[in-house]
């Protein structure tokens, strides 16, 4: 998603929001809610998790508007908060810390129900949560491996290897050999 609010308008909107204008905050929310929700949905397991991230992100935006200096893209600033909130869940939920691509745990019992050839949306859903997050952050949002590693609390080589293995999986699934 690109920034839908021009910089001058963003500065004016933020100034009004900082002065306590709830209407200006709502305008910010309406402009970015779909972008934040889409990012959150790609980085989390369920729609409910993504809704929680959406709410946490905008509460943080409301609290921290003073820290946006008005120099860079407002959407870029909001997006970083959203990514951070979504990825923070991995750190909080230790139970998923052992999830790795090779385990195929997300496929599990439903394996026989998987169609022979998947479309990209379905194939992405089939990737483990953490791996899907790396693919989305890197290939769609344009984060570097260093930035992803920092946000996820992992190493750069982890991010690179997850991306490579995810693309190998996607290739197999998209070409029709579901294994």
């Amino acid at each position, binding site marked *: 998603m690109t920034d839908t609010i021009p910089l001058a308008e963003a500065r004016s909107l933020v100034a009004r929001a900082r002065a306590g204008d709830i209407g200006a905050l709502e305008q910010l929310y309406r402009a970015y809610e779909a972008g934040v929700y889409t990012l959150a949905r790609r980085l989390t397991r369920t*729609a409910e998790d993504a809704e929680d991230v959406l709410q946490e992100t905008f*509460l943080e935006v409301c609290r921290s508007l003073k820290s946006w200096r008005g120099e860079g893209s407002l959407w870029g600033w909001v997006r970083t908060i959203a990514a951070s909130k979504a990825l923070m869940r991995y750190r909080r939920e230790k139970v998923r810390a052992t999830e790795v691509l090779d385990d195929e745990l997300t496929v599990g019992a439903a394996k026989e129900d998987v169609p022979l050839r998947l479309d990209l949306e379905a194939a992405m859903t089939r990737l483990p949560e953490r791996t899907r997050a790396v693919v989305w952050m890197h*290939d769609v949002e344009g984060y570097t491996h260093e930035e992803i590693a920092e946000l996820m609390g992992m190493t750069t080589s982890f991010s690179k290897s997850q991306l490579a293995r995810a693309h190998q999986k996607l290739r197999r699934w998209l070409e029709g050999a579901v294994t």
Partner: protein
Amino acid sequence: MMDRHTTTEELLAVRDGEGTAWSKDHAATCEACAAELFRLEQVRAQLKALPVMAPPRDRWPHIASAFKDERRARLLSGATGLLAAAGLAALVFIAVRPAGGDKASEAAALDRAMARSQALEQTLSALSPETRALPGDAAAAVAELEDRLARIDARLNDPRSWQGNPGQAAQLWQERSGVLSALVDVHVTRVAQAGL
């Protein structure tokens, strides 16, 4: 010269403009690796073209309500802190005040500045600034004034910045009254304009 194809990780680095010289050369000359590189570029383009999703429910009412609650709690906590600072300022002033007309007039000035600040705070609260939209210029002015107010409050809440110099406390309270007065002016003007 290496006798192998590029790995997926190496090809992804080439795709992202970061590959080694060998990987780039190989991908440019090997048909299989060039095809795989093209496929990786296509997948990225298709990922970027996936549709944007809309949240299933409107979360704004929850967010607005939670934020208003937080702000109310913060204002209450800030006001409590300032009351404590005011009390401490008065105590320090009395404790260090030597006998003399100048110091008595400084004490009176401190009392007046605190009372004025409190009255202006009540006036501002009665204007309910959070319920009113402001035009861009006024919004920027209000944001600047609120920043100044926050800086003054931070100093008042830190006794080290004025404890050794009672006159400094009175000056901070006078500055605070000045900023509050300007904020009241902005909002009173806005109310008047809205009523026209």
